[in-house]
């Protein structure tokens, strides 16, 4: 019985390769819709009376594509968004979020071309324990009143 105890130096190479791949596949920009926290501590904000302002933070490079699923009547379309881990890491730091998972969990969704998509699941492929890409399963938000 043995274990591989050799050390591996973590470098930024996987992140750069992932970014280059996203750009070469037509990488664009998506926005993370983030609620402003200024009034959320009050009663009115917690019972849906005062609505916080929202801010869109761009994330790029990113890829947005339709997921091939069996079409069902009345079901909204599902899409996949691939986002650079370096962009996500930078934004998580900017918004003082402990992790990317926390960042996506606190966000209202992903805005693409002014349309809102809700995040259903997040996965992150890793290399040597370092996420180099975030893969989000999103669905179209239902239309809302003006």
């Amino acid at each position, binding site marked *: 019985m043995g274990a591989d105890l050799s050390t591996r130096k973590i470098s930024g190479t996987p992140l750069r390769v992932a970014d280059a791949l996203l750009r070469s596949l037509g990488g664009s920009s998506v926005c993370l819709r983030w609620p402003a926290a200024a009034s959320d501590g009050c009663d009115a904000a*917690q019972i849906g009376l005062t609505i916080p302002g929202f801010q869109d933070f761009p994330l790029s490079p990113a890829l947005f594509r339709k997921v091939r699923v069996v079409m069902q009547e009345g079901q909204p379309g599902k899409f996949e968004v691939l986002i650079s881990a370096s962009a996500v890491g930078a934004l998580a730091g900017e918004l003082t979020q402990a992790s990317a998972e926390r960042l996506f969990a606190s966000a209202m969704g992903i805005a693409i071309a002014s349309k809102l998509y809700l995040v*259903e699941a997040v996965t992150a492929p890793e290399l040597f324990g370092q996420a180099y890409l975030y893969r989000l399963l999103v669905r179209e938000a239902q239309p809302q009143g003006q």
Partner: protein
Amino acid sequence: MQNAKDTFYIALRNRLASLNPARAMLWRGVQRPGIMVEEAEAVVAQMAPDIFVLRWTGLKVDMNLPRTLAQLDCEIHYTTGGTQSNGGLDRGRALEAMDAELVSLLNPPSAAKMDYTQTHATALNSNVYWTLPLFGPETTIRERLDRLVKVSVFTYLDQEER
């Protein structure tokens, strides 16, 4: 009826803050007691663990009384996977702790009805009161235990609410 829903939530939230301040959540960037109204928050794919989520369902109104009586049905959902340090082996105990907390939160079963639409919440001329909790069976979904508790909330509608 909205005043009754708001009062019920705020009463439970304030009781939770004093009963167990450790049951807190970081929601929309703000640290607050671990209870929320589902319809007043953003849609999430999966319910957050270790917090109470209020979901309003049924509504009945009885107008054959001197004052109109409204009955609002509330479902209280919560789920837990135990603690990471214990490998989730304490999830049964964690769920039981939430059960006991909820029993304490719902007692006493009434609160003075408030109008939270004003800048400073104002008291109305009636109370909000509710039934004993009806605990649903414990359900297991993957590594988490879920519970659904039903409570009926009653209130007489005030003149300002009609």
